[in-house]
């Protein structure tokens, strides 16, 4: 089975234990990815990011999986022939996918979208569903910006539309958005690989589920994930003179906050585990949003933001996909040092990429399976090394769980290599070293009306980065 990490985990764990399908160690803070059923010796499981579950089941690495149905539909929107069957609606984590606009913007109904000649910008974690719905809404021109998260914070200034999941309409409104249409209703679902479903007897597991779903008391339905999002009230700002700066959430948040404060840039509300997505700064001509570092290069390239703090790794991933992109590095900030490496299982008899190529040539029937969050970096690395047949498996984190069963090679970042070693993995190549950078848009640096303001902010960053460096030396 492929089981989800993250928000779905508590309710899923509860359902499994209530139905007698408990897996030892299936908890939020677990350090292992491989799980064993306590009752059934022949049933085992692996933990994945929820988005990865339907893909893993569809390609046949797992017989069964549990994930929210929006990720199933996202896969099927692009690959309708995927070998997936939905077995049970597990009823928890109910919600909907909404197409929404900002309460502070100038879109209030779907009719306006198809009537106007604008090229609509749409930010979403569901690019396939977004494209399908844009086509069926007959939007004449649209641009879809896939994001890793924080989609709700982009409108109205940095996107016209957002396609996102929420429990209900009130959750959408709490985020200062207006729902325009509901694409589909979703809930946690049990899925099966179509082929296995037809050939492999999983009756025993099914019986447990079906018995559990028939119970009168369903405690797992009570375990609603406590991610009720809400946005503090704000003033939308369409002023052409303001500089838009994107700063990161996640691992990079703490060091980025420290850097900004050392540079004399006071950012209010950018601390703690749930930062304000629209913090304010002591420079009134700078607007800030907190978004995912993965999404910043594309946003900067499109002029939705002028400057952003992200890793060199994500900038390169973007530039390898779009070589003529105007996104460019401006200042090396000196924190967030990682290496991007090629990793295999310690059991694989390969010490470098050439050994690995030898292994593929010896087994010409099966292409090399490569898992990575950095799909474009991985793709370029394999092309540059003339690896003849490979399959790229995009992942959404926790990629080390993929080796050795579900992938042969991993392109991943590491600080010390300790986590990799703990998972019985070894590094066969170092692609490059990455650190945090201030990035910007070549074109807006040259021509925009706010050129001088951007240049002065860049100078502040550069000055601070240099004095930090001197301190450390």
């Amino acid at each position: 089975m492929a089981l989800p990490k993250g928000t779905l985990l508590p309710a899923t764990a509860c359902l499994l234990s209530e139905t007698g399908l408990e897996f030892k160690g299936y908890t939020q803070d677990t350090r292992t990815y491989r799980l064993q059923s306590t009752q059934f010796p022949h049933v085992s499981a692996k933990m994945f990011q929820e988005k990865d579950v339907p893909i893993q089941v569809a390609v046949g690495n797992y017989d069964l999986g549990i994930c929210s149905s929006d990720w199933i539909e996202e896969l099927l929107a692009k690959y309708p022939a995927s070998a997936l069957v939905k077995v049970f609606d597990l009823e928890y984590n109910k919600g909907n996918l909404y197409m929404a606009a900002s309460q502070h913007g100038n879109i209030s109904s779907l009719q306006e979208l198809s009537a106007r000649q604008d090229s609509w910008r749409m930010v979403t974690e569901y690019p396939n569903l977004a494209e399908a719905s844009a086509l069926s809404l007959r939007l004449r021109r649209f641009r879809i910006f896939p994001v890793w998260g924080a989609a709700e914070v982009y409108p109205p200034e940095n996107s016209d539309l957002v396609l996102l999941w929420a429990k209900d309409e009130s959750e959408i409104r709490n985020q200062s958005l207006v729902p325009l249409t509901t694409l589909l209703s979703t809930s946690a679902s049990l899925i099966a690989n179509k082929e296995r479903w037809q050939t492999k007897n999983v009756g025993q597991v099914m019986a447990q589920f079906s018995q559990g779903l028939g119970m009168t008391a369903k405690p797992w339905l009570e375990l609603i994930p406590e991610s009720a999002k809400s946005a503090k009230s704000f003033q939308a700002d369409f002023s052409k003179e303001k500089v838009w700066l994107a700063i990161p959430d996640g691992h990079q948040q703490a060091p980025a906050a420290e850097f900004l404060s050392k540079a004399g840039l006071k950012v209010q509300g950018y601390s703690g585990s749930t930062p304000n997505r629209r913090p304010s700064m002591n420079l009134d001509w700078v607007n800030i949003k907190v978004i995912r570092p993965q999404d910043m290069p594309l946003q900067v390239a499109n002029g939705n933001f002028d400057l952003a703090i992200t890793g060199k790794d994500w900038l390169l991933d973007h530039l390898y996909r779009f070589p003529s992109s105007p996104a460019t590095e401006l200042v090396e900030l000196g924190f967030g040092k990682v290496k991007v490496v090629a990793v295999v299982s310690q059991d694989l008899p390969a010490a470098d990429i050439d050994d690995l190529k030898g292994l593929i040539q010896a087994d010409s029937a099966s292409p090399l399976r490569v898992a990575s969050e950095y799909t474009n970096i991985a793709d370029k690395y394999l092309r540059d090394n003339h690896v003849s047949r490979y399959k790229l498996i995009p992942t959404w984190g926790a990629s080390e769980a993929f080796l050795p069963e579900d992938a042969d090679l991993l392109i991943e970042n590491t600080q010390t290599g300790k986590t990799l070693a703990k998972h019985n993995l070894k590094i066969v190549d170092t692609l490059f070293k990455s650190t945090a950078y201030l990035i910007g848009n070549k074109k807006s640096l040259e021509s925009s009306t706010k050129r001088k303001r951007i240049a002065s902010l860049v100078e502040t960053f550069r000055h601070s980065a240099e004095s930090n460096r001197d301190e450390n030396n």
Partner: protein
Amino acid sequence: MTNQRCKGARDLLPEDTERFRHIEDAFRRSCLGWGYREVRTPTLEYLHLFTAAGTLTPSMLSKVYSFLDWDGWSGERVVLRPDGTIPVARLYIENLAQEDIARLFYVTNVFAFEETGKEDRERWQCGVELLGSAKAAADVELILLAVEILRSLDISGVEIQLSHAGMLKALLKELKLSPDEEANLLTQILDGNWQVLKQMPSGNADANRLLSSLLDLKGKSSGSLENLKALREISFDLKSQLDNFAEVASLLDVLDCNYRIDITATRGFEYYTGICFQLSAKEDKIGGGGRYDNLVPLIGGKSTAACGLALYLDPLMNLVQPKAQQKTAQRIVVSGETTTPEIMKASFQLAQSLREAGYVTELDFSGRPPNRRWVVTVQEQPSPFIIVDQAQNQKREASTMANVIKIIGGSA
């Protein structure tokens, strides 16, 4: 041997390509004869060219090969050309709009995803577009051009089904549906689901009567259309569409072109606005076309009446039998006995002379010449050329290249 060809893709082998060229040649000859000029459009186009309402149906759009180009960071998607007409309409707007009438043709591939991979995802078509004329004569011209091409290809049993998209759209208006319902109904019809019309709730009795008589109508002559016009209470728009349908049909009658009226032959393309026709031979659909007066303005050009035609190469390739060329059957191999510079020079020179005389000539220095009717061996002693006629099982000698050509020519 492992199969490395992409799913849904097709190789054209030498015999296939010969058939392909045979069709293409006949097509080009006729088009050039009617005053059409050949164009080519790029394989990649922007997706937004095809997304405007009234161009491709949503189900066709869901099968396009769209992706982000290497400079697609702006999110602007490109597609592998899913249709032949729309790119030519774009080419016309950008380059030829000042011409009163543009007669254009092309041979192109179009791409559409097909789930099973058992059918081709890349198809070839011979297309013709006549831009700038609203006259019924233009519709008739395209139908007659198609008939001429198919006749020159010796394709028997060609049938023409005639329908009218403008009439169909006017008819749907009579049903007085909401704009959404109407668009939805049209989409279903264009996807081939005509049953939905029969299940429509009756609103306008006359429109319903007209609808059912049209659905039942598989008549041969324009007279049956005249009868329909007698129905009262139909809108001015519907009446003028029926007039146009009847005008084209009666012109075809006068020109002795046989057709069948079948309104269910309207299919697939949302951009048709007037006469539509489908061509079939035996069970195969081999072509189709129609009038699309709104397409050019929809994609940004000025108001331009236009109509077009496409012949489908893939089914046609199974129906044609190219005649072998006379001199191709006379294939010759020039075989050098050794690979000394002198022998090779003499061999290349002889082969060139034979080609200049109109023969297909291969060269061979392997000592194992392929099996062709003529094998000419070039040697040093005693006589420079030995000619073997495999068909007659005869062997002759020649001392000069002129002699070789004379001997082969004399026996043809």
